[in-house]
């Protein structure tokens, strides 16, 4: 929950850049979540992991055992970083965006 402000600022800062924040949401109750999306101004897109919540198909296949779990992919779709949050996430994303311009 403490991550929303950072994610909002990341999405705002990189608007117009070839960047996307994609979530995989593991809340069981999709309807209750709609209020949270509005309240927290969560504008980025998420897959829904289904009614089984944290036992849903996407997080199971990706072997996710802790939330949040972060993967960062480059523009070719390759996994480049696992786990960075906060400033480390910003730095990783900036590095990959810079690589694209080389």
């Amino acid at each position: 929950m403490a991550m929303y402000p950072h994610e909002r600022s990341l999405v705002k800062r990189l608007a117009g850049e070839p960047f996307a924040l994609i979530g995989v949401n593991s809340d069981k109750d999709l309807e209750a979540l709609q209020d949270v999306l509005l309240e927290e101004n969560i504008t980025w897109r998420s897959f829904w992991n289904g009614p089984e919540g944290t036992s849903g198909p996407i997080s199971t296949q990706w072997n996710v055992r802790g939330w949040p779990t972060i993967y960062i992919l480059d523009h070719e779709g390759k996994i480049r970083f696992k786990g960075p949050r906060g400033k480390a996430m910003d730095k990783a994303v900036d590095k990959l965006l810079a690589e694209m311009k080389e």
Partner: protein
Amino acid sequence: MAKFMAAYQAEQDEAKRNKLLEETYPNPTDYVPRFRALAAQFKGTEAGAGALVWIATKLYGDTQEATVDELLRDYKDSPLLEQVMHFLGQREDDESRVHLRSLLADSPHRNVQAGACHALALNLRGLAADTKRGEQKEALIAESRALFMRVQNDFDDVPYHGRTLGEAARAELFESDRLQIGMLAPDIEGADLNGVAFKLSDYRGKVVVLDFWGNW
């Protein structure tokens, strides 16, 4: 849990709230001296091992590590070691791998061998991730894979944190083979929170932060 939350929120007085919290969810640290005393009184028996397992699984950090070490030293033939194998899987010291190898080979209990096999596979994968590219790294990755395969072949049905060890090993193998740094991310096909279908690969050409999240 829901009943506790309702009672907790209904209570306005701070001190009474805290009392309610402590009564419903006691702090394990307060009980460590009692379990220590039991471990001393019943040293060398299953009850003594059980008391140490209680401490190791309820506490964290140095206390947990020291208690696991004590179990490994004094109770290497106990079936209860099964419950602390996953802690050894996360450790980075060489000693942890020595213990796992010897339990896998010599424990008289199949469930302990099974837990040791899985934990050793995880431990070696972690070590491989911290090893620079080269023969040594490749060897660690190969050994880790072989151990996950052995879990599936020999210990498939052993219960493990609400599922079977075989299921856990299959998920770990997928992570080893498909989710490591430098690998092309597997595609995800699903629906967004408005029910609209999309794919992760729709975002090819962009840098993507993939965030497994939940509102809790």
